[in-house]
């Protein structure tokens, strides 16, 4: 059991002295997850809003598909995107394989259903009196829609945090599309997988601590936002 305790001590030392390999994985994770979360929110919030707010034929079927995609395995997304962006694939010309944008594209596909589904749930769970109330205050359809997004902001924020949690913790996509290239596409999770395989627990624990800290900071920001509003 000593090796775990030693791992913790060494991990803290690595973090304290600014180990370049550890921090490289950290900044790569931050970069790739920021791109994918932004892209998924830009696409997912309007789509989720439309799915939760409007009534149209086939809405229930679309909702069922989106909800099914919530359980999308990361390796399946990795496989799918790999097939597309590999040199032989239809998008091979874009040269996305083993690049950060490539990982970001795959991660966006992975978390898009989360953002869409949770946003749709937040919007459709708005109080039944909401539309009538804003209507009595003179709001037209556009204004009502904008107010509906604002009213469901906590649900949308929760969707973003959940999606971020999934994206910083996933291994399959980063490994398959990124290739775990040191100083280049190695993220925290792929580094942990590699270092653990090599028996380098200290590095793995150090990266694990950074990952936990990142998740904590994101949730903490969310709590502050909720309290302020």
């Amino acid at each position, binding site marked *: 059991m000593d090796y775990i305790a030693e791992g913790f001590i060494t991990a803290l030392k690595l973090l304290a002295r600014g180990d370049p390999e550890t921090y490289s994985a950290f900044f790569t994770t931050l970069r790739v997850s920021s791109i994918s979360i932004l892209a998924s929110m830009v696409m997912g919030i309007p789509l989720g809003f439309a799915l939760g707010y409007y009534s149209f034929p086939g809405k229930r079927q679309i909702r069922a598909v989106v909800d099914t995609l919530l359980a999308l395995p990361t390796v399946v997304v990795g496989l799918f995107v790999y097939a597309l962006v590999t040199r032989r694939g239809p998008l091979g010309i874009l040269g996305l394989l083993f690049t950060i944008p490539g990982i970001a594209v795959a991660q966006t596909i992975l978390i898009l259903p989360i953002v869409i589904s949770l946003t749709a749930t937040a919007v459709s769970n708005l*109080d039944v*009196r*909401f539309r*009538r*109330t*804003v*209507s*009595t*205050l*003179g*709001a*037209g359809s556009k*204004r009502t829609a904008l*107010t509906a997004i604002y*009213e469901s*902001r*906590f649900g949308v924020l929760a969707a973003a945090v959940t999606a971020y949690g999934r994206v910083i913790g996933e291994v399959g996509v980063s490994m398959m599309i990124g290739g775990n290239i040191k100083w280049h596409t190695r993220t925290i999770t792929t580094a942990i997988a590699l270092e653990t395989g090599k028996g380098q627990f200290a590095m793995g624990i150090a990266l694990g601590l950074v990952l936990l800290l990142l998740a904590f900071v994101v949730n903490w920001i969310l709590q502050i936002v909720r309290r302020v*509003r």
Partner: protein
Amino acid sequence: MYEIQNLKRRYGDGFTLDIPSLAIEKGKAYGFVGPNGSGKSTLLRILASLDEPDGGRVLFHAETAQPREPSRQSKQQDRALVTMLLQEPYLLKRSVFENIAYGLRVRGIRRSLRSRVHEALMMVGLEPHTFSHRKWSELSGGEAQRVALAARLILTPEVLILDEPTASVDRVSAQLIRETIRTIRHAHNTTLLIASHDTTWLHGVCDEILKMQEGRIVGSGEENIFTGPWLPAPDGLWEMNLSDGQRIRALPPSEMIPHLTENAVALLDSTSIIVTTERPDHVSAQNILSGMLAHLYTFKHSERVKLDIQVAELPMTCNITRAAARSLGLLPGLDVWVVFKASSLSWQWVEIGIGE
């Protein structure tokens, strides 16, 4: 202000709002009373352009040379002039200030927001500095009701529609709301349409009271409504049995349709009732009913006294003079006799509904 022609609104459970004709004058205050499910809220929602009628027309600004035909565009325009406080008010998930300012922002008004919001809060009896920064979740039910009302008052609408405005507030707040809407009405010549179960409160605000029953307007003023079932008696009169064995007797309707007997509705004006404390002898009236005086109301500028008398399961309203009330020594809880003639009852919409 409004002209209603052959308005119909149906719901799946068999309820039909059916108003052949109704004119609402600008600047007047109308109260709508009636039991739950009588169609008050449905009618008010249609007048607020929140609900669509299935048939008929509702003309807005009917008194002008160009009354507005109901259309999507006109409804949007009307919403700027008409506002409604819903039965269960909903507050947006933001501060009290933002809730009250919302309607003004929708109208593109940005000037003097702060002072206007504070003024609106004061109108509903809420201290601006204490309440304007509170969150929606930090208010009691009564406070939320008053904030919702303030959000409508700030818009100084041409028509203010209130659905049960005093349902969740205490008596002091109810009185405050009454004074506030009276002030607003006189200051801006606002047309008021109010649905409430609190008839006494309504009488303090409204010029005219319309009684609703099963989707229809069945009368106005202080009538008592007897919905039956009515059965023909051997002596040719019609009778309605009460749970304690007493009966209300009425002259039969002139054009009687047998299968609609039970659906008949009889009205009795509250001033047609005589109240006594001892059983009267030698009177020709067909109806001498015993009951208990439940409430007694006096009004500031009126010589009339309103009595709520419980006769078996039936609440009845009577109007007598102050002098009569004094001489009878009326007090709530007193056993009284209610006397009225069979001919004092009038029939409503007995013939309506053939084929429905």
